[in-house]
């Protein structure tokens, strides 16, 4: 930590000039999504850090914080970590992906309606 005069935590999150699109037409949904995506990002960071710890332990049996900071995944390790992150993103985005598939599906009736139909057929 340097003794610089810029409060990097406060300044990092500075708002960009320009009206923000009201994409979801709902303040609460917009703000909750921002929190959720930030938390999703932090979970990905924790997963990657844990992966670093595990790989270093596999390799050396004992590690320091400096080892974690210096670690750079290359080759197979880089690939495996990227696949794990891809899988993680696919998992948290499941709702959007399934709604995309739903748009392509034939029109579907409520299950309650099918339930009655099956009872009587």
């Amino acid at each position: 930590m340097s003794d610089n005069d810029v409060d990097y935590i406060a300044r990092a999150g500075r708002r960009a000039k320009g009206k923000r699109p009201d994409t979801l037409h709902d303040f609460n949904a917009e703000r909750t999504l921002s929190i959720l995506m930030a938390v999703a990002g932090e979970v990905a960071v924790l997963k990657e850090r844990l992966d670093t710890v595990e790989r270093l332990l596999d390799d050396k049996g004992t590690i320091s914080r400096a080892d974690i900071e210096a670690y750079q995944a290359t080759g197979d390790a880089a690939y495996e970590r990227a696949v794990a992150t891809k899988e993680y993103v696919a998992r948290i985005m499941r709702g959007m992906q399934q709604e995309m598939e739903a748009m392509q599906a034939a029109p579907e009736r409520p299950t309650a309606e099918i339930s009655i139909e099956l009872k009587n057929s």
Partner: protein
Amino acid sequence: MKQDVPPPYTAVAQHAVFPQPTHDEAARYNFLTAFNKYLSGSIGAGNRIAYDTRVLPAFQADHGRDPQDRFEIRDAMNQDPWHRYWSALKRNSMEMRQQNGRSITLRQIDELSAKVRQYNEGRETLQLDPSLPIPHYMDVVDIHCMPGNYQGEERPGDMSAGANYDSGLFATTAGGLGALSDGGGQALVEWVRKERPDWKPRRILDLGCTVGHNIVPLALAFPDAEVIAIDTGAAVLRYAHARAQSLGATNITFIQMNAEDMSRFPDGHFDWVQTTMYLHELSGKALPKIIAESERVLAPGGLMFHLEQPQYSDDMPLYEQFIRDWDAFNNNEPYWSAMHALDLKQVMEDAGLPRDCQFTARVLAVVDRTIFPAAAEGAEEDHGRAAAWNAYGAWKPEA
């Protein structure tokens, strides 16, 4: 099955003034890279599906006709819940990228400033002009949701805007621009070497150079050339100069200047005038002025070359025009839409470059393919960010 995944953020080259990420800051970029790739690749097609299955049929039912332009499609798509949520996710990823880049840069601002100062102090190759007004189009919004734009300063003499910009290019383009985010500049070198193998430009001018990532490869490829790179933002120029020097490109002079008025340079001064992903950040009045000024300072037989995302022609389906417009309205690129609808060939002709000396070319980023991916094109393309461009150029007729 081999998965299509981006390289890790740690594959970026750590030049001498590059902001150093911690383990977790790099991991944050890795998440954003994967997330961006997912939004454009894995589920980007959902926008088209929404359009085909319900937005277009509803529009046709309401209006008794097809949409007439990309704006009607945008208005209709902005009523669709799936597209709205996709847009909200994408907007958040842009904002998160800025916060991470600024956090990395600003927590080490003292160290970075000291390194940059070492390269900059007393150097004639960095010429700033504090009296230069920032043009309206560079100040009306923060482009790419980048707080403070290219000229923002956290304190006098700051360069952090440049450092932040450099640090995040990798994440926004999923590594498509290569280790130094210079795949565009490398592509220019490859293009000119094929096109004119023996050509040696004496003077090269780069307009809107930002952090100089696209001009450094040209300067290194033509070490005997005198290269001038201009921008209106002092903050990015300070960083660009130090970055170029640290990479050995000592033949570039970075000048704070507005390209609308380059009266400092005589007629026919440059053999090559270059812009890379720049024209869309101007305005309707500034763009033709800048093309005209560029033509004036270009020597007979010289090359004018603009690298941009594809223009919207009548041949481009309206839906594609709409999706290519996303950044214009959701990522603070307010001139993007109008610029891409311009007839650039006409603008260049009006500036004095006849049609028969003009050309267009398809240019792909040149990067180390053992580590970095080729840009996805077609259905999986990240429209507006793909590391694949159209070049609009001209060889100025000999006098």
